[in-house]
């Protein structure tokens, strides 16, 4: 379960060092937008050296340069032998791009004696075509474990202003959630980019949670605590989930398929949600009892 994914500029030694101790569930080591064109080689080598040396106690995702750039293959050639948990291809607009990247990863896994399929993919959807093809993209490879929405590039492609309220990306957010869930992968929301607006961050993250996103990308370590909190099961939800399971087990013993709890019918979808909440709480080490 990944609630928070923190972007780390790939050419920043201090951020690469600090990333190991920050409370992010995953780090996205960025070789793309955070790195100037004339420093692509330096960032690639620095990230590779950090992965070789630093023991990161969290998921490591490397954002590679776009498929239409001169760099994505070199990025994979240096990074795949170091076994990051996932690669994040950028500006994914169709499934053919994903298949080409997955084939290249397979070739490099074989050369490095890494089990084929070890390195996962988290495509970044940040174009209008990408949103329209999101399900096809999410289903393009068994390596795909999540989709990330990129709001900044998307609104540039949509030729509209990116606002804090996010009305302009509402359809895209819902599309990504539906496509990802339909494909059986996790939907991850775009970062909130105003580092100093704590209330705006909370509002934005709660909106994402309500739409069905399972986590959110983050551009500042300052945002991590709030994002981890919002995307964790709340104590009340865990308590209710326990009551649901208890009620349905009682009903089963009495030979009934449905139960009643606080005047509401408890049926299969509610039980399924309760099980998911308890499983998330268990994975996060949250208290399951009062």
């Amino acid at each position: 379960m990944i609630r928070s994914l923190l972007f780390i500029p790939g050419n920043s030694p201090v951020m690469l060092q600090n990333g190991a101790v920050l409370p992010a569930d995953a780090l996205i080591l960025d070789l793309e937008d955070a790195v100037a064109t004339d420093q692509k080689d330096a960032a690639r080598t620095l990230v590779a050296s950090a992965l070789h040396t630093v023991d990161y106690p969290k998921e490591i995702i490397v954002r590679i340069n776009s498929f239409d750039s001169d760099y994505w293959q070199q990025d994979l050639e240096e990074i795949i032998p170091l076994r990051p948990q996932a690669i994040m291809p950028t500006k994914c607009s169709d499934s053919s791009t994903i298949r080409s990247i997955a084939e290249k990863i397979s070739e490099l896994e074989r050369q490095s004696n890494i089990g084929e399929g070890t390195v996962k993919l988290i495509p970044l959807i940040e174009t209008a075509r990408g949103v329209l093809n999101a399900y096809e993209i999410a289903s393009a490879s068994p390596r795909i474990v999540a989709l990330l929405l990129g709001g900044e590039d998307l609104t540039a492609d949509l030729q509209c202003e990116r606002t804090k309220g996010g009305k302009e990306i509402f359809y895209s957010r819902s599309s990504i959630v539906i496509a990802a869930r339909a494909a059986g992968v996790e939907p991850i929301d775009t970062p909130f980019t105003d580092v100093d607006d704590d209330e705006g961050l909370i509002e934005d993250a709660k909106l994402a949670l309500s739409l069905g996103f399972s986590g959110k990308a983050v551009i500042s370590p300052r945002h991590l605590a709030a994002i981890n909190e919002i995307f964790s099961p709340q104590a009340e939800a865990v308590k209710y989930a326990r009551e649901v399971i208890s009620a349905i087990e009682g009903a089963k013993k009495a030979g009934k398929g449905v139960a009643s709890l606080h005047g509401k019918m408890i049926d299969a979808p509610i039980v399924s949600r309760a099980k998911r909440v308890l499983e998330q709480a268990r994975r996060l080490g949250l208290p399951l009892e009062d």
Partner: protein
Amino acid sequence: MDIKRRASAGTLESSDVLISVRPADKLILKIESPVFAQYGEQIEKVCREVLAAFNITSGEIHLQDQGALDCTIKARLETAVRRSLSQDD
């Protein structure tokens, strides 16, 4: 192999190291570091390992260290050497 052209990599930001390489008759390693007294030998060891991996036998290597970890020194020197060698193509 000789360093035949000037190249550099890294920055003077905290935790980084700026490494410049240029041609010389022999191998010269110049290390400036605020932690030279404690870690000078280790920094030199990391540099010599990288230079050996590239078979570099001559060139002046100048490090302006800002408290970089070994993995950063290694990466910056590799980048500087590669940039120098790629200009030979």
